[in-house]
C-alpha cells in the first residue's frame, strides 16, 4: 500500500476537481461519502481511482442527506471523512451539516457552486454563498473558504481538514463549476514536508476501553430539555466561534491606501477583479481590490476599515447580491457608497469589471 501521496513537490496540470481529490489524500483524509451531481463529479471519480491505492474508502450513498450524515458518522468514529456536492445537493447537505454544526463535528464539505435553482447550468455561479455560509436552521457556526485558483483549491482543501479538526466546526471549501472544470498548473506538495502540521483526528464514539467501567460512555445528542439548555449550549458555541474569528478570517487586498474605489469580489470572480484593478491602476486610476477568502467568518474589521478608507465600493459577483449582503452588513455605518455588478449564474470578465469601475468613477475610456 502506498503511504505518501506526494513524494516530492512538483508542478502539475490539472482540473479543479482532481485537485480536490489529491489534496484530500495529501491531508490524509480517510473516507469520502458522495452522491453524483455536476459539477463536482470528478472529485468522486478521482477519489475512487486513487483511494484504493492508498487504503482509503469511498461510499456512493443514496442521496446527499445520506452522504452528509454518513460523513458525520465517519468523523464521529474518528476518521477524516468528507463529502462534496453542489446546487440542490448543497440544499440537502444543509441538514447533516446543521447537525454537524450543533454537535461540533469536523465534517469537511467541498461545494462546487452551480447556477440555480435549475438543472444543467453548471459552470458559472456564486449563488450558493447564502446556503453555504448560513444555510442551516442555526447560526452559521461554520468556516467557509472561497478559493480562486487551483493552488488555493489544493491549499485550502488541506487547510479545511485542519481547521475542522482543530476547532470542531464543519468546514467548507467553496469553489464553483468553472474552477471545477478549468485546467491550470499548480504545485502539489506534502503538507508535512512544508512544515504544515496535520491535526490528529480523535474518535467521538468507539473510544478505547469499556464504557461504564474504564470510562463513562461517550454519548452525544442534539436534543435539549428546555429552551434555556439550548440557549446555553448555543451561546457557548457562539462564544467559541467568536473567539476564533481573528485566527480564522482571511482576506487579500492591494492598493487600498489612496484608492478612491475598492472593488470587492470572491472566488473565481476575484481573478477578473484583480485583472481589472491592475489594468486600471496602470492607467493611473485609483482603484484597489479587497477579497474575502473566508466568507464565514467574514474579515469584518478589515472590511470596515476599507470602507473608511475609500469613497466608493464596487461589489462584483456571479449572484444577485449574496456577497453584497454580507459586505454591506459588515461595513454598515461607514460612509463609502456601495455599487454593484451582479451577474447571477453568468461569468464575469475583467473587461466588464473595468467598464463598471469607469462608469462609477465617471472616467470613460477615450
Amino acid at each position, binding site marked *: 500500500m502506498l503511504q505518501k501521496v506526494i513524494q516530492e513537490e512538483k*508542478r*502539475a*496540470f490539472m482540473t479543479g476537481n482532481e485537485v480536490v481529490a489529491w489534496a484530500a489524500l495529501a491531508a490524509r483524509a480517510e473516507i469520502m461519502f458522495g452522491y453524483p451531481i455536476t459539477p463536482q463529479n470528478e472529485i468522486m*471519480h478521482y477519489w475512487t*481511482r486513487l483511494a484504493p491505492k492508498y487504503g482509503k474508502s469511498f461510499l456512493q450513498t443514496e442521496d446527499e442527506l445520506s452522504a452528509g450524515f454518513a460523513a458525520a458518522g465517519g468523523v464521529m468514529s474518528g476518521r477524516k471523512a468528507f463529502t462534496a456536492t453542489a446546487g440542490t445537493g448543497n440544499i440537502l447537505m444543509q441538514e447533516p451539516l446543521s447537525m454537524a454544526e450543533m454537535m461540533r463535528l469536523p465534517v469537511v464539505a467541498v461545494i462546487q457552486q452551480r447556477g440555480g435553482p435549475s438543472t444543467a447550468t453548471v459552470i458559472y455561479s456564486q449563488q450558493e454563498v447564502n446556503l453555504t455560509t448560513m444555510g442551516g436552521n442555526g447560526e452559521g457556526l461554520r468556516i467557509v473558504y472561497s478559493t480562486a485558483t487551483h493552488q488555493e483549491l489544493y491549499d485550502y482543501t488541506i487547510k479545511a481538514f485542519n481547521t475542522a479538526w482543530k476547532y470542531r466546526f464543519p468546514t467548507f471549501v467553496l469553489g464553483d463549476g468553472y474552477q471545477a472544470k*478549468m*485546467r491550470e*498548473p499548480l504545485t502539489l506538495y506534502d503538507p508535512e514536508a512544508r512544515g504544515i502540521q496535520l491535526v490528529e483526528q480523535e474518535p467521538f464514539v468507539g473510544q478505547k476501553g469499556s464504557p461504564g467501567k474504564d470510562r463513562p460512555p461517550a454519548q452525544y445528542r442534539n436534543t435539549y430539555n428546555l429552551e434555556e439548555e439550548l440557549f446555553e449550549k448555543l451561546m457557548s458555541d457562539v462564544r467559541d466561534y467568536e473567539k476564533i474569528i481573528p485566527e480564522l478570517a482571511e482576506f487579500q487586498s492591494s492598493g487600498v491606501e489612496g484608492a478612491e474605489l475598492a472593488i470587492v469580489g470572491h472566488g473565481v470572480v476575484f481573478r477578473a477583479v484583480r485583472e481589472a484593478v491592475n489594468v486600471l491602476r496602470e492607467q493611473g486610476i485609483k482603484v484597489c481590490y479587497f477579497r474575502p477568502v473566508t466568507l464565514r467568518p467574514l474579515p469584518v474589521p478589515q472590511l470596515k476599515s476599507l470602507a473608511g478608507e475609500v469613497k466608493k465600493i464596487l461589489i462584483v459577483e456571479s449572484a444577485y447580491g449574496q456577497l453584497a449582503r454580507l459586505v454591506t452588513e459588515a461595513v454598515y455605518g461607514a460612509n463609502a457608497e456601495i455599487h454593484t455588478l451582479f451577474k447571477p449564474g453568468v461569468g464575469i470578465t475583467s473587461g466588464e469589471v473595468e467598464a463598471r469601475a469607469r462608469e462609477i468613477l465617471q472616467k470613460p475610456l477615450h
Partner: protein
Amino acid sequence: MTDRVVEAYVGEYAAGKSENALNRAIGLAGQDRMVTLVDLDLVEPFYTLRPLQKALSRLGVEVIAWKTEETLGLGEAGTVIKPAARWALRRAGDIILDIGYGVEGARTLNLVEGSTADQDLMVIAVINCSRPWTSTVEDIVLDVQQMARVNGLINNTHMAEETTVDLVQEGARTVSNAAKILGLPVVATAVCDGIAKKIGHADCMGNPVRPLQRMMQKAFW
C-alpha cells in the same frame, strides 16, 4: 487502405483530446481536404466543440456537434449522442472523432457504426505527462492498456503558459518509452506554435512535431 484520414482522439480527462482533434481537422482542411469533426464527448459536450462551431465552419471543417438551440440542459444532461455522430464513419472524406473521457471514454467508439470494420480508423491516445495520472511510463502504460483500442500515442505534454522546451522533450522521452512497451507508434509530439518553432520538425526522440493553435481557450477552457 485508402488515403482517407480517420482518427479518433482518446485519452485521460483533460489530456488535450479536443485540442488535438480540432487542430488535426483544421490542418487537414487547410490542405483542401474534406473534413468532418465529430464531438463524441458524452460527458461534457457543452464544454468542448459547441462554442467553436462557427469558427470551424469558416475554416472549412464540417462539425457534427449539438448546437445550443437543439438541446436542453447540455451542461449536465450531456449523455445524448447526436444521431449524425453515430453514422459519421459513413461520410465521405476525412473523419476526426473527439472522444470524451472517463473509464468508458474509449469504449464510446462502440457507439459509432462501422468503427470495428473501418480499415482506416486510427485510435490515438493523447498523453500529457504533466497530469499526475499519466506522469510516468508505468502510469501511461496502465492507462492505455485499460482503453479498448489504441493504435498510437501523441505526446501532448504541456503546462499551459508554463510550458518549456525541456518539459515537452521530457514528455517525448516518457511517452516514447511507454509506446515501446505498448508496441505502439508515437504519432507526434503536439505542442503550441511558439515552442514547436524552437523544437523544429522532430522532437528529441525523432517523433514528428505537430504545432497546435490553442483553440479550446475560445471554448473557455
